[in-house]
């Protein structure tokens, strides 16, 4: 490995965040319990700092460290999304952790390390680097999910996530080893060359490819590898759920896309059927099982499975359309999901988090602003214009039709009509019924800011997406042939 200045400079954002994260851990004992929120502010500044560094690297597709690490506009786009998502998460965390009495300084350190893991994932040019990134992210998330140490649900969720996650990691690693055994390389470009060569499609490569796909499907919670999602989303502290559901998923999609488009694009015919199966299963499971949920966190978990189904459609055909569709989807999905979880974590009934759909009954009477924001997120998640979720779905279906999968788009729209029911059920509860039990909704300034940003972006992405479309278009130039 060559630690030349170019390599070091290229990975500066990751280095910053790692160092500052370590610093956070060191500072934690010296900060009095009442001033822990300063650590959160410190974490926000670290992220802003790293974001500036990333903007400074206007990435020309540099393979760093002999191709182990890639810094290109594509990875920088995903990194920017990761920064934004993490910052919004921290804004939500500060008051939430206070109220839940789990305000530990380490929390922010783990959050930063998870973000670093995600950044490594989306920049990985090599399957081992990729694995390191995934594990760094996952280990931090296991801890964060179990943050509420005295809640059975949280600990159970953490344990479940850990066990299944370890399983998935093992499967993924096994896939990598098979690929390495067949091809003798684990860099993406090397694999691409190997796969493109006509005699290469030995069962070993196919098996390795399928096993890595299972690992990714687990991370993006696409059916049939979604089983962990509802339990973990329900049990985890809501702010962590929001983080996993939005930022974690965005990063996983980024790397899923890069591996399959760069390394395995030559044998697309062999895996497109698997992707289609995963897409249809996820859309069915996500949209139909969500109909019967009464806990809103569980409902959003199934909704996120459904959204994974829509997003994987965009993986089918390596083209500009699909790449744009996936990136736009991730961008819009981040804000609407974070916002929806934000509303849930601010809403309280008798001081306890209100996470049943019945807690939203009559919210409009008590707090019209909260109800209106939730309405925006719900309609956006359902894909109704004029919100960002609509354009996201629109571009995914457009990519599907362009790739010749019109029937898949038809299946998708029909299932999204089914799915619309459970989103508008929340709106119905908020607006059309009279309140039974009083709930309180008192966001402080930070939460207010985070809600303003998420709701504002959700609307802006549907009404005036021009600047973001430009940004995404400049970011996708390199990956597509």
């Amino acid at each position, binding site marked *: 490995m060559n630690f030349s200045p170019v390599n070091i400079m290229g990975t500066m954002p990751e280095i910053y965040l790692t160092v500052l994260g370590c610093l956070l851990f060191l500072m934690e004992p010296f900060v009095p319990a009442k001033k822990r929120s300063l650590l959160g502010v410190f974490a926000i500044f670290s992220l802003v700092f790293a974001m500036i560094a990333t903007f400074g690297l206007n990435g020309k597709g540099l393979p760093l460290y002999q191709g182990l690490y890639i810094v290109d506009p594509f990875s920088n786009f995903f990194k920017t999304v990761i920064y934004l998502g993490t910052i919004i998460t921290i804004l939500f965390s500060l008051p939430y952790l206070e109220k839940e009495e789990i305000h530990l300084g380490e929390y922010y350190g783990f959050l930063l390390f998870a973000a670093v893991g995600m950044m490594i994932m989306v920049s990985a040019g090599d399957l081992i680097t990729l694995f390191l990134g995934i594990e760094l992210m996952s280990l931090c998330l296991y801890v964060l999910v179990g943050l509420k140490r005295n809640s059975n649900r949280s600990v159970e969720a953490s344990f479940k996530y850990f066990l299944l996650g370890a399983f998935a990691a093992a499967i993924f690693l096994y896939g990598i080893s098979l690929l390495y055994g067949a091809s003798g390389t684990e860099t993406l470009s090397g694999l691409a060359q190997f796969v493109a060569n006509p005699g290469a499609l030995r069962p070993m490569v196919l098996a390795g490819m399928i096993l890595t796909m299972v690992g990714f499907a687990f991370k993006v919670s696409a059916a049939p590898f979604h089983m962990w999602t509802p339990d973990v989303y329900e049990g985890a502290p809501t702010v962590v759920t929001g983080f996993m559901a939005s930022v974690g998923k965005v990063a996983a999609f980024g790397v899923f896309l890069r591996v399959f488009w760069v390394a395995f694009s030559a044998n697309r015919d062999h895996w497109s059927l698997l992707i289609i199966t995963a897409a249809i299963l996820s859309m069915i499971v996500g949209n139909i099982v969500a109909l019967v949920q009464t806990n809103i966190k569980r409902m959003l978990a199934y909704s996120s499975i459904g959204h994974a189904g829509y997003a994987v459609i965009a993986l089918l055909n390596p083209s500009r359309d699909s790449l744009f569709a996936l990136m736009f989807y991730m961008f819009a999905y981040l804000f609407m999901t974070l916002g929806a979880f934000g509303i849930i974590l601010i809403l309280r009934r008798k001081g306890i988090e209100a996470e049943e759909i019945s807690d939203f009954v009559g919210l*409009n009477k008590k707090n019209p602003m909260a109800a209106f924001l939730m309405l925006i997120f719900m309609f956006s998640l359902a894909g*109704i*214009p004029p919100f960002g979720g609509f354009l996201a779905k629109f571009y995914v279906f457009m990519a599907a039709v362009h790739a010749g999968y019109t029937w898949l788009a038809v299946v998708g729209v029909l299932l*999204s009509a089914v799915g619309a029911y459970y989103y508008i059920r929340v709106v119905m509860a908020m607006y059309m019924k009279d309140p039974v039990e009083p709930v309180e909704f008192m966001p402080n300034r930070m939460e207010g800011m985070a809600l303003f940003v998420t709701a504002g972006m959700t609307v802006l992405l*549907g009404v005036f997406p021009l600047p973001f*479309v430009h940004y*995404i278009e400049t970011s996708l130039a390199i990956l597509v042939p």
Partner: protein
Amino acid sequence: MTFLSVPILTFLIFFPVVASLLILPFYKKPGTEGVVKWTALGITVIEFLVSLSLLIGNNPHLYQMQFVENHLWIPFGNIHYALGIDGISLVLVLMTTFLMPMTILTSWVGISKNLPLFMINLLVLEGAMIGVFCATDFVLFYVFWEAMLIPMYLIIGVWGGPNRIYAAIKFFLYTLAGSLLLLVAIIALYFVGGHTFDIARLSGQHYGMSFQILAFLAMFVAFAVKIPMFPFHTWLPDAHVEAPTAGSVILASIMLKMGAYGFLRFSLPMFPDASHFFAPMILTLSVIAIIWGAFMALAQEDMKKLIAYSSVSHMGVVTLGIFVANTQGIEGALMQMLNHGITTGALFLCIGVLYDRSHSRQLSEYGGLAKQMPVYSTLLVIFALSSLALPGTNSFVGEFLVLIGSFKTHAVVSSLATTGVILSAMYLLYLLSRVVWGVYTPKSYAMPDLRAYEWGSLIPLVVMVIVIGILPNPVLSLFHQSVAHLVGQMQPAPLALLHN
């Protein structure tokens, strides 16, 4: 082109939306209902007056889009913010702006809870509905088309009757499920029609027959649910009955027209061959709707349900006119759309007047109102006669044209549809005999005659009923050129093009 260098269509779409923010400061402030109502009324009246300038600036001798605005909205996928109106959209836009003040007036006392939110919803809805009629980019059209569902869902679900939640969800899901297939059709058209969403450019082409049939069917579901055509109509009686009066008026008068507008704007010019291919089926469904809707209306005890089923019947006349696809048929259909908007809207307003007093819509509750409420009864009789297409009222013109148009090519269909006219006379006269005539039974509540705001909402409609009935030509001339152009586009393609 813009009128007086103001982008007038953009103004018409966004003025009510933006101006509705004026109501926001009065949210949850008791005692400010008056201000809220007058502000909303003022906004809709200004909107109507501004929309009249379309009439002045419009050149009726052109079939092309006028007042065109075109800006790139989203570069990826070449989506434009493109607006424009021709004669067909012009009358529908004017009808919308004309009816909106009435819907505010009819909510003057009927809406008691959360009035500001109700008015905001109405105003946002107005903007979206005008957007539907003005959009000349397919994606923009779809955005308005779906966005409309949100305020309407709230209007039915929050301010509706006892079974409102069921009705609101049924309305929302039905329309959404129909529209989503339209979305796939729009995307497919983009790739087949040369990477554009521009409606005019998509219309001028000849697509292969199998594509035409699939895309036509996908659009057909969306528009047929909205109209609603016979097997797709089941959401309508629920939504009408449960919605507050203003909601029923908007649904019946404006939203139902959007399905028919969709057929005229998209299905016929884009897929002429598929339209000819499916015409027999649609004509059959239209005749079924006309007769079956009328029979259902005859059997109703609830006045709103009666008028709702009569809408199914009357909209059957519209689809009949559209799919005979000759000039008289389509012009008649457009006239019928306009007149149904005025007359049925007025009938719903009349029911609202009674409902505000007695909180009942059952026919058995009323009788002998002619003595008690003479002015009201007179107006109700006029609207009912208009609805049954009495010569001299507006509806006569439309139905007559449609029947002539259809008789030329489909004599059997036309004769069957004529029975609808007779049946409509039956149920409307039955309605009148139960409500207006008969013996007045004293009630525990007062039944005063029309109040000032009710005068305000009904008198303009009476004027329109009579004026259009006597002088239909100025209205017909507005869309004559556009219809002629449309009929020209409907000529069957040369055989060679069909089999590409």
